[in-house]
């Protein structure tokens, strides 16, 4: 009887089947990111008129002052003892405390943007109540359409994070386990091509990548009305490049490790900087300029930029070629290095 089926197909099939039979893996790859998106999406939802909580410390005219501030829709004012006020301010429940008197005192934390904002709004309210007139007539236009909210920023961030995490963990653990169980050695004793074995990881990542994108983007769309402003096809292309790059990095981190503990340590060491710096949950622009060149060389940073550019700005692939080139370069370099130093025994 001749060859029954292609070894690359059988290896890839085995990868996919093994993964699907691992309930924990399914949870971390598909359910966890959706829960995270749901939780963060609710916590940071755009509230229609978010009012600032202001404490008014006991003193002459405190009750009247509190009532006046409370009449502004942007403010909610509560009279309280100075001790209570200090305590609630310290724990972040209040944005600012007003101490009444001949000259009113504002107590707030100037490093909190909420404090800065409260100082301006409260001062504005008090000065206006005291008779200040604004010489200039202004009008406002509010931006609330989808695309500018936190959840719009977050979904592509989580998508990139997931492509990184599942690429690294999914591949790293599996390979180290196969090495520890001497399964790699057993495969080496067959005429299997080593490149087929390594490629099967890339191909299985490709399959799961499509499911991961569908789960997160679908969830964002159904629950939070997060739209993909660019083409879905472009989004998939960016995701493929990302998934394969992190598959390469996963192979590299697992290429010599002998224990699951060992590979976990290496993976956390590799991924932690990207969790923090690459702009998953907030913009990397918050980090000092001196760090920016370093941040830009991490593979997750350009991947997230490209995902957001396609999803939020609706940019075409052609606008993201430089970013994709950086991501792909990481993939090619790490795959090449992994093949060179991979330990089969």
């Amino acid at each position: 009887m001749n060859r029954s089926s292609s070894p690359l197909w059988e290896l890839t099939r085995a990868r996919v089947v093994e993964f699907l039979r691992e309930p924990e893996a399914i949870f971390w790859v598909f359910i966890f990111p959706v829960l995270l998106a749901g939780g963060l999406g609710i916590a940071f939802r755009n509230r229609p008129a978010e009012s600032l909580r202001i404490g008014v410390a006991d003193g002459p005219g405190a009750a009247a002052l509190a009532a006046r501030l409370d009449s502004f829709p942007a403010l909610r004012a509560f009279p309280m003892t100075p001790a209570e006020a200090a305590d609630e301010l310290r724990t972040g429940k209040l944005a600012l405390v007003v101490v009444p008197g001949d000259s009113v005192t504002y107590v707030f934390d100037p490093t909190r943007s909420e404090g800065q904002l409260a100082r301006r709004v409260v001062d504005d309210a008090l000065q206006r109540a005291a008779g200040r007139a604004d010489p200039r007539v202004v009008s406002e236009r509010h931006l609330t359409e989808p695309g500018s909210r936190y959840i719009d920023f977050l979904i592509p961030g989580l998508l990139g994070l997931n492509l990184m995490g599942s690429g690294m963990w999914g591949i790293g653990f599996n390979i180290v386990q196969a090495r520890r169980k001497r399964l790699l050695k057993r495969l080496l004793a067959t005429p299997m091509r080593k490149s087929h074995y390594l490629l099967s990881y890339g191909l299985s990542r490709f399959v799961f990548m499509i499911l991961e994108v569908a789960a997160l983007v679908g969830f964002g769309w159904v629950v939070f009305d997060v739209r993909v402003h660019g083409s879905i096809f472009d989004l998939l292309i960016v995701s493929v490049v990302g998934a394969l790059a992190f598959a390469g990095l996963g192979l590299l981190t697992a290429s010599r490790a002998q224990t699951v503990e060992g590979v976990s340590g290496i993976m956390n060491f590799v991924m932690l900087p990207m969790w923090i710096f690459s702009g998953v949950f907030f913009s990397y622009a918050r980090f000092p300029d001196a760090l920016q060149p370093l941040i830009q060389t991490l593979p997750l940073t350009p991947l997230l930029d490209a995902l957001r550019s396609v999803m939020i700005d609706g940019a075409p692939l052609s606008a993201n070629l430089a970013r994709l080139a950086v991501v792909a370069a990481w993939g090619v370099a790490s795959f090449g290095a992994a093949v060179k130093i991979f330990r089969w025994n």
Partner: protein
Amino acid sequence: MNGIVEVAVRCQGLEKRYGDVVAVDGLDLEVYAGECFGLLGPNGAGKTTTVEILEGLLQPDAGELEILGTHWGTDDRALRQRLGVQLQETQLAEKLTVEETLRLFRSFFDRGRSIDEVLRIVELEEKRAAWVSRLSGGQQQRLAVACALVSEPELLFLDEPTTGLDPQSRRGLWDLVLDFKASGRTVLLTTHYMEEAERLCDRVAIVDRGRVIALGTPGELISRLGGEHVVEFALANDDPAVDNWLRHVEGVQDVRREREGIFLTVREVHRTVPALLSALRRHDVELTSFTTHHASLEDVFVSLTGRHLRDE
């Protein structure tokens, strides 16, 4: 098959070191095509290292090597097409089924058996849809052998195939090996069970400390002891001085002492035992136990090394 090969495996002066430890120390072997050849030795004797070098998985530090008329390093993938390998202590992927595992291994080979045929040979037809993790130890071991049989190899390597198995599973595997050999193919197996070597192997090399210390058919090796029976007994008041006269009892070829008692290698039990009993009476020594058995490869190993196969 690429014609008929007279010698399936030949190696000379094989050496392998791990740091200061010498695992294989100048080992020579010749395995003929169509025979079942056994490497018998205790744990740590260098059997596995030797086999893994022959399988092309380890690089020897020195030595000449020829497998099925060719060498590692010329066309390894072509050579691997002709080999079946079962490694010691390989755990196959737990969450694949028996059938999926076999299909995966089968896909690496250009030619071979159908999955159904292999399942029948190893008697795992009923387990075809079971996950590997749900199989018993014996079934997992049969599956490991099945993975080596999917290609219908010319040469089958089995490294301690029955270690840790219950007697029934062990006998099942023996039948498998005997059937394979009956089809005219070559088997090289390692074991530290003398009974296994005696049952399965046409020829046996006894390996100790990385070298072959004896080679021949099981029968030849046993007859080299000078006697084919062993008389085993213990004395109430044992005194090493008794060895002096024991040696001169009619038909005694060899005397050795073990924790369990005194072992005599003898040619003819029916002559030696009466002589021994009367000698004991003459010296006024009392027996506490007395048995006889056919000499085995275990006795050969002990007489060569002074140690047991299953020591350490």
